[in-house]
């Protein structure tokens, strides 16, 4: 199943914020976590993650720090801020409202539709 491009774009911010809420991370590990969480169904173009991370930084949702990775390379780590957590909570409310509405209107609710796919 291919998930629609717009849907992926819309879910990218809450997904990244939620992953960072689990603990600080870096680009490659975030992408891996996304694949893991969606059983490989959410496929991002890797390069697009970085501009998104920069936008989150500009809005003050994440802080960044260059450190040396265990492999000895320079690596940029991202950590969520309080403003980021607040934004995530707001996103969660919005997504809950959307999924609730879809669950009400789709026959049999939301989960069977996922099961059929």
């Amino acid at each position, binding site marked *: 199943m291919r998930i629609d491009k717009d849907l992926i774009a819309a879910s990218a911010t809450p997904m990244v914020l939620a992953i960072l809420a689990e603990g600080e991370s870096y680009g*490659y590990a975030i992408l891996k976590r996304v694949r893991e969480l969606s059983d490989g169904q959410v496929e991002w*173009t890797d*390069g*697009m993650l*970085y*501009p998104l991370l920069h936008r989150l930084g*500009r809005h*003050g949702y994440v802080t960044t720090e260059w450190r040396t990775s265990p492999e000895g390379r320079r690596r940029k780590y991202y950590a969520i801020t309080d403003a980021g957590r607040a934004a995530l909570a707001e996103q969660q409310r919005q997504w809950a409202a959307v999924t609730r509405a879809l669950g009400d209107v789709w026959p049999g609710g939301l989960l069977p539709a996922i099961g059929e796919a």
Partner: protein
Amino acid sequence: MEGVESQIAEWRAYVVDVPGVNGHDVDELEDHLRHQIAELRAAGLTADEGFLIAMKRLGDVDGMSREFAREHSGRLWKQLLVSGDEASAPAATGWREAVAFALAAAVTVQVVRLAASAPDEEPTWLLRNAALFVLPFLAGFLAHRRRLDTRGWLVAAAPFALVALVVNVYPYAADSGTELLVALHLPVVLWFAGGVAYMGGSVRSHERRMDFVRFTGEWFIYYVLIALGGGVLMALTGLILEPAGLSVDWIPMWVLPSGAAGAVVVAAWLVESKQRVVENMAPVLTMLFTPLFALMLAGAAVVYAATGVGAAFDRDLLAVFDVLLLIVLGLVLYGMSARDPSASPDWMDRIQLVAVSAALVLDVMVLGAMIARIGDLGFTPNRAAALGLNLVLLVNLAGAAWLTARFIGRRSVLHPLERWQTSYLPVFALWAAVVVVFLPPLFGFE
């Protein structure tokens, strides 16, 4: 592994030149790439295969470059591209249009001058309308460059038509003070009206407004440079021709007004097309002058706080203070537009906070003196205009000082401060429009 190293080096050299992407981004992407290749090798692929798959997953460079550029529009500005889906105007072309619009402005100024039989006579309508003879050509040039559609042209032209109507149907009294105020504020209104054309219909966009601030700063630098060069040329021409017995009266009558009008469009074209030349100078200029102005403002604030303000503020000094506050605001705005928004606070931000706070203190004192004056002597058009301008400045400076302090104290990022300034731009335009449209009738066109 050798082969992959050289492939990565080649990729790096290519991506680092892509618009919107800087060296740190490439470091980050390279770390990503190496991580991915290592993992694929661990799964049994060769280094070459790993490189190919990692590249494929990273996605095409153009799309990524567009995303980076959208996020960092400041970088984009430096690299002479317009983001978004519309095709960008070609970089160094368009000089024919620039010359055409500049010539049109130059000729219009002369036609008007002859119609007014200046400089023998100086009718007040000439002064009052001065900006209307030049700035429409700038807006036209920008609208043409942005390839606006009919609706875009109408939206851009509407403020000019409205203002032209208002300015010319009002029955100003002889020696009218409001007429002089209109002449002073009209260029500001029309400059912002030109901004509508510059932003090409996306006036609500924070990024486009920031671009307009950059444009204004760069335009000012170019215009001053052209004015200096032109001044030297005219002075030398006069000095060389006069001893030969030739009359040089034609220079101030023909060359000066036309040159000044044409240069408005030419400077805009230079900003649009020769961005690289100035981009290194602009941050240097703000870096040089912001500390100097901060020092001067802090000194002035201390002096006036110590000596008291009562008697010192007469009418001329008030005008000087208003100009000073506007310059500080210009420096701060322009410095911010040239700044990398993702960098953490540094000493320049602290100096800017000093400048803004000192300006704020001075503004409060000016306002106090002004209100006392109005209490004693009542409102005049001049006092009303000055009071309004100072209130507009006060709110802006207070907001800027508060947000800068929060940014330096790391309680906030730069973004809210930038937003504050770009959201405030219409307030300046509105106030200038109020002075042009409402002040004259309020004071009976006196």
